[in-house]
């Protein structure tokens, strides 16, 4: 930070403050305390704070510090402790997301397929009924009151009998176990038919359908099936609406080189299909994506430029009176603005591996997370922590790989992250790190994840500085967290007319949030 006289900066200036870090953003200084409260200061105010200590003579600033839990006083203590408890000791939902690979087969051959699928005819990689039951029995050993079972693949609908059996069997077991249980399927939606749709509707299975944008983007990544996917999506969507189901089908897309020139068109495609949100995620370097990297791979800078374009366009849409959100922004900003922990496994410390999610391969092998399972498919079983039917939940959670991943993804003890202003909002991925560098904890500044997360947060906080944007973000968070949110950094306009345009769609959990 330019202009600070380090000679004047004294430890004692911070003695009544809650631990915090800072970063220069858009001409201001963003300060964030360890538990996620944030505050923008003007540069001279920040300089004054670090050089001279708390500005007792400046009531406005002191009130800001108090309101945002930046000082530890009798008044803020309860709020700070509450925040810290949520951040470090939130014990709710331990291992609630369970990802099942019903088959590795897929009828498509997408360029970036992380799942490393095998051709549709290779039946050796289908889960058997016997294994499926063992998987469900393992899932119910997890202590979480809320269980979310997600089918991924391969294309889960290719092993339809087993998917059906898992849902029926889990519901049967749950009659005794009495958990709150939900099912999601991540599917390419080319294989949906009436019989399947009836069953999915009857069991309120949430559908997550892959769509990368208009045909000229989607078909380049995923083969010539855009028209079919859109037709099926509309059919499923209409049926869910007509049946009055609470959770409507959601779309998920992947960003590749082919997406880059079409940020606006991709958002428009989602809107034209009735979706009121988009979730922008970069492709991982895991799996086949690695082999096809020259064709589809993008640099972190390219991704961030694309992300900024999406966010600006989405904000523009909202300013025009239509409600439309970006999910990654919601996950980060709900932590900052509402102190809400979205439980998104990739933005947690420690990350969601094993504690948040488990992945079950078609043969019953259990991995710390789905990315770990993909690595297993590439021949590296470092993160395999057991096998259903042989290992208990305790064995899985006490496995040395589980402990190693938890330790390596604890941001507070990661050199570099421990001093970073974004620490309360960020997450690091040991599996991706290990895949990219051979180390669980490489120098964080060299990792792709750091560059992307830091860049995204810079983009969001820069936008947050503009009152009309922060009003939009506030609405998103309010809607997501489900309560009135007060953010004193933001200006909230009086008229609530935009809310009338909010469609009823709810978010899909296939976005790895738990």
């Amino acid at each position, binding site marked *: *930070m*330019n202009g*600070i006289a*380090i*000679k004047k*900066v*004294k*430890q*004692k*200036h*911070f*003695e*009544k*403050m*809650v*631990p*915090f*870090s*800072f970063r220069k953003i858009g001409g201001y200084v963003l300060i964030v305390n*360890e538990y996620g409260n944030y505050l923008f200061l003007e540069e001279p105010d920040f300089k004054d704070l*670090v050089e001279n*200590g*708390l500005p*007792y*003579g400046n009531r406005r600033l*002191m009130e800001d510090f*108090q309101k945002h839990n930046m000082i*530890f*006083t*009798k*008044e*803020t*203590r*309860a*709020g*700070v*402790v*509450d925040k*810290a*408890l*949520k951040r*470090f*000791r*939130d*014990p*709710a939902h*331990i291992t609630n997301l369970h990802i099942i690979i019903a088959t590795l087969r897929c009828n498509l051959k997408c360029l970036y397929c992380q799942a490393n699928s095998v051709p549709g005819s290779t039946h050796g990689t289908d889960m058997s009924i016997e294994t499926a039951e063992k998987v469900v029995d393992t899932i119910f050993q997890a*202590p979480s*009151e809320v269980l979310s079972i997600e089918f991924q693949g391969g294309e889960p609908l290719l092993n339809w009998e087993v998917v059906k059996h898992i849902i029926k069997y889990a519901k049967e077991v749950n009659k005794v176990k009495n958990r709150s249980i939900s099912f999601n399927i991540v599917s390419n939606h080319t294989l949906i038919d009436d019989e399947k749709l009836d069953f999915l509707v009857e069991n309120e299975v949430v559908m997550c359908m892959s769509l990368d944008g208009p045909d000229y983007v989607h078909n380049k990544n995923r083969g010539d099936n855009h028209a079919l996917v859109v037709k099926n999506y509309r059919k499923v969507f209409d049926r869910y609406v007509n049946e009055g189901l609470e959770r409507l089908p959601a779309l998920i897309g992947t960003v590749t080189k082919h997406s880059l020139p079409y940020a606006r068109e991709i958002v428009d495609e989602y809107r034209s299909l009735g979706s009121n949100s988009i979730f922008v995620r970069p492709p991982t370097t895991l799996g086949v994506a690695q082999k096809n990297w020259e064709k589809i791979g993008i640099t972190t800078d390219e991704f961030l430029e694309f992300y900024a374009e999406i966010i600006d366009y989405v904000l523009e849409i909202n300013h025009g009176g239509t409600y439309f959100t970006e999910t990654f922004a919601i996950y980060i900003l709900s932590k900052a603005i509402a102190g809400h922990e979205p439980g998104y496994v990739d933005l947690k410390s420690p990350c969601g591996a094993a504690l948040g999610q488990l992945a079950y391969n078609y043969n019953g092998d259990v991995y710390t997370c789905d990315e770990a399972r993909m690595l297993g498919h590439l021949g590296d079983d470092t993160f395999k922590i057991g096998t259903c039917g042989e290992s208990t939940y305790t064995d899985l959670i006490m496995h040395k790989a589980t402990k190693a991943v938890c330790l390596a993804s604890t941001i507070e003890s990661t*050199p*570099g992250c421990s*001093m970073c202003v974004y620490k309360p909002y960020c997450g690091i991925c040991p599996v991706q790190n290990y895949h990219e560098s051979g180390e669980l904890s490489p*120098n964080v*500044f*060299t990792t792709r994840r750091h560059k992307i997360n830091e860049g995204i947060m810079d983009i969001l906080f820069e936008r947050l500085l503009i009152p009309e944007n922060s009003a939009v973000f506030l609405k998103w968070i309010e809607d997501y967290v489900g309560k009135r949110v*007060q953010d004193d950094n933001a200006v909230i306009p009086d008229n609530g007319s935009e809310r009338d345009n909010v469609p009823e769609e709810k978010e899909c959990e296939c976005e790895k949030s738990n």
Partner: protein
Amino acid sequence: MKNGGNGVEMHFSTKLFPAEAILGACHKFLAKCYVRVDYDESDARKIIVQLKPKDGETIDNLESEFRDEALDYSVKLKILKGTSRVRDQIFHIVFNPERISLASDNLQTELDTESRAEVFKLNDKMEKLLADIEEEEESFDYEDDPLGIATPWEEKYGQPDNILDPRQQIEDQAKKGLVIPTLNGEVVES
């Protein structure tokens, strides 16, 4: 260090920039530069930093970028040290070992009468912890506070309406299931 001619050498006073801060700043540059840090042989109060961009890396303003980073890091270190007491107090409450062990004991079991009593005992402890901290705070030196800001806020401006009493807060947390997973709702209501 093999220097391609485009490297920089900087000197930092150890009085203002402790070695820890310099190393912390270096951390960020390791991917793009070769870095050496050493004490000045002729002046023990100076640290020398040499940076040389790796092949293919061009960094504009390398020197000013590093100086900014070293300054930021030094300030962050002072914040870290200055706030350590408050951090300890917060951690003391959050990671109270008794609460944690009780939480994990209860993770998968129903709450029986005995552990119900435990929870109440626990909340007592929490109250005591908070009381201790309050007491400690009484002994803070408010000499630097000519305007009396350190006087409890509510004495000066009235109780802000959105701020709860700490005990109330703990109970609310219990209700939300945050203190003991899934179980406290019943306890507080009973």
